[in-house]
């Protein structure tokens, strides 16, 4: 892949239709927010085969390229969302497996059956070394064998998200303690395979009950499920080692349970470890429990991250701040373990404090990104980012958080998040700078080199155009 890109760059001067079977484009005379470098004016952005090949006032327009006159317009890199469920079926559709989202439905009944069997079967279960003796893994929310890449089911309502400027995301289901293997995707369709930027992006975890009834019903129980599951994965790793040492004979083969087998790359640091954790204590808990298994965590939510800066730094943790800025809320609490039951005054205080988190993180030198997780359909990423700018976040840092930093935090820093040669062509052509100006309209969207017009309405910055995200409001 890398060599292909290098080849394309080398051949850039002669890039034309013939060399670019998936299309060649040139956006001309635009103001370009590159994010990775300085802002350009009167610049061209050249795209071949879905990849940016040249950027600059002197970038030659290849013959045969489709030219988009972007005079007076602004091109910015597609916003990268640090965590979402774009392109996934709505949670109810997942219910077939262990009753996800079913409350005390099928999963609850299974769990109860498992618990009824628990005591009576204890001795037998131990004799059999049965890892499922008292945990019904699916009811407990251990979905580590769930692969986002296999679940993607576009087209859903991705166009509304795209039109708001979000063009790529880390995607995994929202529910569960082990939510499954995340994928980095471009928000396009209809072909799920074409969306994938990285099908093996890491495991997303959350130290909270999955809410499916049965065990676990508490945070400490969820922690126990997390710990037991990773201990089981470590045991599988040990078994594999012993079996190999024995010459793969004389012993039964290791127990390749799919729910532990799929966690071996995580333990081996071949996959990233994401933890959904919003409030202060949840963040500290996630850091401690990542450390227990030698994982380097990236915190998703991070609404009170400004209170945990020394610990985040010590852990070398990635940070993806929820643009919802809403730690509190009713019911179970806000996204990612927020505290429930806050009074309106407390909630307002918490939100005001949360809006300071980005500026505080930037001041501390933490290269955080953003996620839309927890936002509602009426909120817009740029309007939300401006709230953080109102609390001292610079526009340059806001742009980085919306794009390049998030790309880096989800392991796609070489592919997404800026306008520079070699990057995937995720671009937005807009009437202006959506962080710097009041009313900005997106005109054209390019996702992985595919040029799409923006739907007529609602498209204005600050409008109500984000919408359409599946699986929100957990």
């Amino acid at each position, binding site marked *: 892949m890398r060599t292909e890109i290098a080849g394309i760059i080398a051949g850039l001067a002669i890039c034309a239709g013939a060399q670019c079977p998936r299309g060649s484009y040139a956006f001309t005379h635009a103001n370009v927010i590159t994010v990775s470098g300085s802002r350009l004016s009167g610049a061209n952005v050249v795209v071949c085969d879905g990849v940016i090949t040249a950027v600059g006032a002197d970038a030659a327009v290849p013959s045969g390229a489709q030219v988009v006159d972007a005079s007076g317009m602004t091109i910015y890199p597609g916003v990268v969302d640090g965590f979402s469920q774009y392109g996934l079926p709505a949670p109810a559709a997942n219910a077939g497996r262990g009753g996800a989202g079913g409350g005390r439905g099928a999963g609850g009944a299974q769990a109860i059956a498992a618990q009824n069997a628990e*005591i009576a079967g204890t001795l037998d279960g*131990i004799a059999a070394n049965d890892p499922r003796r008292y945990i019904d893994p699916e009811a407990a929310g251990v979905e580590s064998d769930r692969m986002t890449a296999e679940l993607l089911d576009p087209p859903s309502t991705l166009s509304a998200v795209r039109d708001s400027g979000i063009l790529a995301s880390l995607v995994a289901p929202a529910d569960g303690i082990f939510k499954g293997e995340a994928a980095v995707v471009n928000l396009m369709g209809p072909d799920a395979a074409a969306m994938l930027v990285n099908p093996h992006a890491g495991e997303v975890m959350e130290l909270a009950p999955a809410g499916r009834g049965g065990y676990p*019903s508490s945070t400490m*129980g969820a922690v126990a499920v997390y710990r037991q599951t990773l201990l089981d994965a470590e045991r599988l790793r040990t078994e594999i080692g012993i079996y190999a040492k024995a010459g793969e004979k004389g012993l039964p083969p290791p127990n390749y349970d799919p729910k532990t087998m799929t966690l071996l790359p995580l333990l081996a640091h071949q996959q990233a470890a994401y933890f959904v954790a919003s409030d202060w*204590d949840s963040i500290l808990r996630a850091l401690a429990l990542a450390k227990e298994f030698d994982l380097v965590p990236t915190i998703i939510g991070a609404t009170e991250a400004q209170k945990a800066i020394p610990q985040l730094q010590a852990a070398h943790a990635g940070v993806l701040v929820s643009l919802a800025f809403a730690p509190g809320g009713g019911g179970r609490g806000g996204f990612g373990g927020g505290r429930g039951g806050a009074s309106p005054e407390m909630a*307002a205080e918490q939100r*005001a404090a949360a809006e300071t988190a980005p500026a505080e993180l930037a001041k501390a030198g933490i290269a955080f990104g953003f996620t839309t997780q927890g936002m509602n359909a009426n909120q817009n990423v740029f309007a939300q980012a401006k709230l953080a700018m109102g609390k001292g976040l610079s526009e340059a840092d806001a742009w980085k958080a919306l794009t390049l930093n998030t790309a880096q935090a989800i392991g796609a820093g070489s592919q997404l998040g800026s306008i520079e040669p070699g990057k995937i062509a995720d671009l937005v052509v807009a009437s202006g700078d959506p962080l710097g100006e009041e009313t900005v309209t997106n005109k054209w969207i390019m996702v992985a080199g595919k040029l799409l017009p923006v739907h007529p309405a609602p498209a204005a910055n600050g409008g109500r155009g984000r919408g359409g995200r599946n699986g929100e409001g957990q």
Partner: protein
Amino acid sequence: MKFNLAIVLVALAAGLAAQAYPTPAQAAPLAAPGDLFIRNATVMTASHGTLERTSILVRAGKIAAIGANLDAPAGVAVIDGTGKYVIPGIIDEHSHTAIDGGVNEGAPSISAMAHIKDVINPHDINLYRQLAGGVTIIHQLHGSANEIGGEDAVLRLKWGLPVDEMLYPGAPQGIKFALGENPKQTANPHGRYPATRQGVNDAIRTAFMAAQVYKKQWDDYRAAAARGEAVYPPRTDLNLEPIVGILEGKVLVHAHSYESQEMQALIDDSDEFHFHIASLEHCLEAYKIANELKSHNIGCSTFADDWSYKMEAVDGIAYNAALLEQKGVRAAINSDSDERARRLYQDAAKVIHYGNVSEETALQTITLNPAWMLGIDKTVGSIDVGKDGDFAIFNGDPFGPSALVEKTIIDGRVFFDRAQDLAHRKSVAEYERLFQPLLSLGLADDSDGGGNQ
């Protein structure tokens, strides 16, 4: 403009609220154990009587000297104890304070895999409020929904410091058991076994049998591995590890209980499986089997005068602690409450009121005896040379009706100071006086999501 003003106000409010929790810079000096000299106080030692006009020297967090003729070494902070009473820091033997995300893992009947240490919220304001009641250590217990519940934590109320610095160093691991109605009735909503009182004991016995099988698996594996055989290890089972720990004498059992026959059933289990019960919790009918508790060296952590709030509590009496003490059984008075923890000294006074025990015996119910039940009485729980510099300083007799805690000290560091707290409250009141008119005009109303100017 309106929006900006709102932001300023809300930010100010947030900043003020944040003062309730010390900043890292404020807390840092409290992290290391300190030196301290308390001069000329009435010292209730909880181990060797009450000493008048006595001074206490703390060095590096430990009590270095106690005496009438001590002088403060140069450079050591001095607290004038004239007219004040000093007692050991109060230990609340039964607490559910500062536990995040559920006190019970109620779904399975055996939830030993759940650990309180994983879910401690060091920022819970109740910890500070309990400091104001002279409490220096709390025993954080899993709830009573499970026959065998989760592992406990022994927490020093070092408000402002991280959890790791609050956990009592070297405290033995303990675990919660629960007998009677609570685990029985929790069975119904969760649809779990057992749903009868007799089943409660069966669940416990089965868990111990399972732990025996599990322990043997590991013993066999280790023996085979030592012989160089290629064998797979057994599965590490987080639900049985703590029960093996009980069998090995490493994990202390604290058993929620009300009726004497269920306590006796657990004592029988302990004889059968050869484990020790460190304390019965609540144990309202313990006075009925005081001899059995004495012979098994079991403590009873109870309420001063709280009974009849449910059927299994009808035989509770206010003389329980006094009767147990008469029989040589150690009794503790606990709170089981965020709020009651702030006035445990008054509950201890009730033991004198009802049972006419000595002041020292009453004091021990909230200091030395809970320390003994937690296995930390060699280092804390009384005012003796070598023990932790943990104290509550009262304005007068702690068992008197107008007793107030003036300072609470842990490891020679002042973690609560009533005078400072009152001054802070004054500044909060001043803030509200200045800004309330603006707040009431709605200028600071940010409740619609902010940014919708």
